[in-house]
């Protein structure tokens, strides 16, 4: 059974991080260059970590499967990044950002982690501005803010609708600087396919070069995974097509516990599905809910009419009606479920009846079209490209889609997994977002982990490892891991069945969306737990991966990732079945209040569920880390 000690420092909440930083072990500057750290992934968390660790003097190897570190999917985040700067003088503070995030997460995250996140949020903005990130400014030249869901203050910093792009390019520039300086060795188009564990510690990885097919072993003193979320297990999502869970899944199979896989986020404002050929769903930023109003017709017969012809009194602005104090800016899980309920009642709009309106006509009347264009122009353009509709004239149609994974590998306060030496950052870990993430908090967490947490906490581990004690990559564990990767690759290539890999990914996605999506219940989850192993068996019988393993082979890459999703999907359902309550993004139909809101069960489920792999064909073990709330009173989330 895994040892899950969260190692939360003692002392008052506001003192914990400061005290911890003062007390943890350090590596002296002359010794830092003797340690080699592998960082996998170069999104916000990975790029900021690699750059910051290299600046400290560690030797860093950075691995990305993309052709350039600038392509990581952090780049697609639109709306903004939260920080407790209180520049608007509206009463914001570290405590308020902490409290909003804990409450937004439906009381399923660690107090100490979230408080630290809120504390370092202000440093992130300083850091990014110093790198030249062109944040939006007021006329006086100071930084501008906007509002996001789940908060009643305006604390979100943004760069038009491309905040993630600008923050990532900032982190990428820091990474590039250190590559240019020779402090980081960069491996692009290099996919991590196994973790090497030596004597119980993470000491390296096995990598496949996606262009040449070459498989190589890499030894290090510590391994940092910043490989993003696993949401693409659902196939049709807002994630990039290449986003995958392979790195964290293979680490799971080497002993790292997987925490709360059932906490997946469905984002309320995405462009609806139009056909079965579709490869992805496109998000419309939550920032649109600042000025857009969400509605459906009150009467079913109005659902097929031109929306501009539906009279004001015949419209149901249901978020404003149900949640008057937060209105259109209620949290994502709440807004998504409300949209689903409206469509389930038969009041959905569009060809399929599976969408709701997001209407800007009031904002255009109030502010003028030019102001709306300045704030959201690029989002309106994206909408137009995809739908050929002009959202300045007619309301957007939106529907929820899978967007983010709050679950991930279990980590302690130092962001180290239960496998010593294995650190997990950003969306790939589980720690800070609880059961639901608030808007503009993913960018904050990725950069907090990479710039301001790992540079301190990794030293606490490395100080216990003798400089120069790094094993040789020719050791038995490395060779065994390489053998494992080679066997999997040749197995996939030798199947020579009939079906393309997309066939299985689509079917897995359909099973999960139906039974483990916005609403879940016991019967559905049990059915999914029968269907997924059957699909997996079919995959390994009838899959066809054309081509060879020694050139660029995109079908082979995807086959490996889908093989992992077919296992992860099962764990997702298992976790959802075991968690007999509703909280945040995990909604069990058996556990709800009469008005359809989540009913948590704090007496029995105020804990992290961290799953431990026990071998093929064995049921994984559900370990538990209790969540203790010393400062915040757990209550029913109320956005009314």
């Amino acid at each position: 059974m895994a040892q899950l000690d969260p190692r939360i420092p003692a002392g008052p909440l506001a003192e914990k991080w400061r005290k911890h930083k003062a007390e943890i072990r350090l590596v002296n500057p002359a010794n830092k260059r003797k340690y080699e750290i592998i960082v996998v992934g170069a999104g916000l968390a990975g790029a900021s970590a690699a750059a910051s660790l290299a600046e400290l003097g560690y030797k860093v190897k950075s691995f990305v499967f993309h052709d350039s570190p600038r392509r990581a999917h952090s780049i697609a985040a639109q709306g903004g990044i939260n920080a407790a700067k209180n520049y608007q003088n509206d009463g914001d503070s570290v405590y308020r950002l902490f409290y909003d995030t804990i409450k937004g997460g439906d009381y399923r995250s660690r107090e100490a982690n979230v408080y630290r996140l809120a504390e370092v949020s202000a440093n992130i903005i300083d850091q990014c501005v110093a790198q030249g990130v062109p944040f939006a400014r007021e006329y006086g030249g100071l930084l501008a803010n906007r509002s996001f869901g789940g908060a009643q203050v305006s604390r979100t910093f943004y760069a038009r609708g491309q905040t993630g792009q600008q923050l990532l390019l900032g982190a990428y520039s820091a990474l590039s600087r250190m590559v240019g300086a020779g402090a980081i060795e960069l491996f692009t188009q290099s996919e991590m396919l196994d973790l090497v564990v030596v004597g119980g510690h993470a000491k390296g990885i096995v990598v496949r070069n996606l262009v040449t097919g070459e498989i190589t072993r890499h030894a290090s003193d510590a391994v940092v995974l910043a490989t993003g979320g696993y949401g693409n297990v659902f196939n049709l999502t807002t994630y990039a097509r290449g986003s995958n869970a392979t790195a964290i899944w293979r680490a799971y199979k080497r002993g790292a516990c997987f925490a709360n896989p059932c906490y997946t986020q469905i984002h309320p404002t995405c462009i609806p599905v139009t056909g079965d050929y579709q490869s992805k769903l496109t998000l419309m930023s939550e920032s649109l809910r600042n000025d857009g109003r969400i509605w459906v017709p009150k009467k079913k017969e109005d659902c097929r009419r031109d929306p501009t012809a539906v009279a004001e009194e015949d419209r149901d602005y249901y978020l404003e009606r149900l949640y008057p104090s937060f209105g259109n800016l209620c949290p994502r899980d709440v807004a998504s479920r409300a949209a689903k309920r409206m469509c389930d009642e038969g009041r959905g709009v569009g060809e399929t009846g599976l969408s709701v309106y997001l209407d800007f006509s009031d904002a255009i009347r109030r502010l003028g079209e030019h102001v709306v264009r300045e704030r959201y122009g690029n989002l309106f353009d994206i909408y137009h490209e995809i739908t050929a509709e002009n959202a300045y004239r007619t309301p957007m149609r939106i529907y929820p889609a899978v967007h983010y994974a709050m679950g991930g590998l279990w980590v302690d306060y130092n962001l180290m997994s239960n496998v010593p030496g294995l650190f997990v950052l950003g969306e790939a870990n589980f720690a800070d977002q609880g059961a639901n993430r608030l808007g503009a908090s993913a960018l904050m967490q990725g950069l907090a982990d990479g710039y301001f947490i790992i540079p301190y906490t990794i030293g606490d581990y490395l100080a216990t490892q003798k400089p120069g004690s790094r094993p040789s990559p020719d050791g038995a564990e490395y060779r065994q891991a390489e053998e494992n990767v080679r066997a999997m690759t040749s197995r996939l290539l030798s199947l020579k069945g009939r079906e393309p890999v997309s066939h299985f990914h689509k079917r897995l996605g359909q099973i999960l969306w139906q039974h483990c999506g916005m609403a879940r219940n016991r019967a559905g989850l049990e059915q999914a737990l029968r269907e997924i192993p059957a699909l997996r068996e079919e995959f390994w019988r009838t899959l066809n991966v054309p081509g060879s393993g020694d050139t660029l082979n995109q079908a082979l890459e995807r086959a490996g990732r889908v093989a992992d999703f077919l296992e992860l999907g099962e764990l997702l359902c298992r976790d959802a079945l075991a968690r007999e309550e509703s909280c945040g993004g995990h909604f069990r139909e058996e556990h709800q209040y009469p008005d359809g809101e989540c009913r948590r069960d704090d007496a029995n489920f105020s804990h992290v569920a961290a799953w431990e792999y026990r071998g093929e064909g064995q049921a994984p073990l559900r370990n538990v880390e209790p969540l203790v709330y010393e400062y915040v009173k757990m209550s029913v989330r109320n956005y009314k």
Partner: protein
Amino acid sequence: MSLSVTLRVWRQAGPGKPGRFVDYPARNLNPNMSFLEMLDVVNDELTLRGEEPIAFAHDCREGICGTCSLMIDGKPHGPQQGVASCQTYLRSFRDGDVIVVEPFRARAFPIVKDLVTDRSAFDKIQQAGGFITARTGSAPEANAVPVPKGDAELAMDAAQCIGCGACVAACKNASAMLFVAAKVSHLGLMPQGQAERDRRVLAMVETMDSLGFGGCVNQYECTAACPKLISHDFIARMNRDYRGAIFRAAFNPSARGE
């Protein structure tokens, strides 16, 4: 309503191998389908027939990661202005069209396979100087230095570059001037970017030249092909910066950061 087209696709097994065009029919397509989704469908059909699918670069499929890079009927990213290949939809084509699909071609972007090219030259230019040195933890308070709104907006216009390489593919000289100018202008417009301004433009331009990109002859095909419509005015801004920096460096080598 559906449409059927013929795709004339560049197939090349690997770097330095001979390539050729191969025709593939794509039938009964929904006009709301994206161009890349059509390639997905064609690839699935190829797989079912036991043939090797067409390799093409793609990832976010929402026009921001800069991975996709198709030359469609001779235009980088296809017929529409201001979009990436992944944001090109079939409604831009007519039933019966023959559509020619090629990789972005440039000496500095060698072909990896089929429609995939190696654009790591762009990373090398960034590594040479595309940054503001701001060691983590050393940053001053964010509002300590106000940035005029107009400067921040103009910097953002340049900073939007997605690094796809369409500007290079569109240019008859395969020049990377728009790409480099966008980065130089973005950082040079910010007050934080002044300390390294000369060093940056010299290092980036020299690296660009050494990697085999051609020179600019002011025809601005780059801006027309840019999915973010980044203005060629930034090239003029970079040229001015570069001339000034060369001049200063001639008198004072420390301008090079040496």
